[in-house]
């Protein structure tokens, strides 16, 4: 299966409504509470600091890597798999406190959330954008990961335009 084919599948799944409708009855809409990052529990903050800093790639998703519960989380997983990356994940559907606190920790309202070497990268749109532009290969290289698509990128760059 070519990576171009897989990539189109990822994009289709992003646009697809069916993965989202599976979880329709499972969870309620986002909380309207507003906490600031400053009011984060220090113990929680330290736990997340440790998690994102001790793993080259740390992601916060809906569901598990082998059973994502959201099209956007699935897209992130598929992109990371295309590049052959190892990662650690946390399922925010299992922990409501984690879910709400991560919005403040990352200053980002939605999931999935992706961290490289302790630095917040963004969500599905950003990862997808970086994958499409080839930037993701470079960003992975910076954190010491050689992407499976690194050679594909080079080949494309030399033959395009």
């Amino acid at each position, binding site marked *: 299966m070519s990576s*171009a084919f897989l*990539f*189109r599948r990822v*994009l*289709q799944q*992003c*646009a697809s*409504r069916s993965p*989202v*409708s599976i*979880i*329709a009855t499972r969870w309620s*809409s*986002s*909380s*309207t509470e507003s906490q600031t990052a400053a009011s984060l529990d220090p113990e929680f903050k330290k736990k997340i600091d440790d998690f994102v800093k001790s793993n080259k790639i740390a992601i916060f998703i809906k569901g598990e890597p082998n059973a994502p519960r959201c099209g*956007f989380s699935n897209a992130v997983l598929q992109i990371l798999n295309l590049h052959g990356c190892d990662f650690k994940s946390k399922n925010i559907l299992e922990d409501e406190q984690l879910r709400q606190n991560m919005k403040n920790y990352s*200053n*980002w*309202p*939605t999931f999935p959330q992706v961290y490289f070497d302790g630095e*917040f*990268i*963004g*969500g*599905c*749109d*950003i990862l997808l*954008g*970086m994958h*499409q532009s080839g930037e993701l290969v470079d960003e992975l290289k910076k954190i010491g990961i050689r992407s499976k698509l690194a050679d594909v990128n080079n080949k494309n760059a030399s033959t395009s335009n």
Partner: protein
Amino acid sequence: MEINKDNIEKKLRDAFEPTYLNIDDCSSGCGLKFDTIIVSKKFEGKQLLARQRLVNDLLKDEMTKIHAFTQKTYTPDEWEKKQEKAATNPECPIKSTSACTGNCGNCPK
């Protein structure tokens, strides 16, 4: 204020003065869902994350009630290059995504 495509569009237009803006309302049974493409000079010199944070901050209140929100942010130059690439690339990668406007004129109807 009710959260709907028109109100979101107005906010985005006022803040970013986009040269191109597309909002798809894909709301369904599980909640409000909007897919957006925003092309604006105000994104120049900004990385993807900074651009998306600008949009997130603008729609901070709406975000607490929206189920899902996708945003593709481009500068006018980036958007033009993307359109050119789609025109010359027979295997258009945009075709099957929500980013397809259906009117770039390259696909036979």
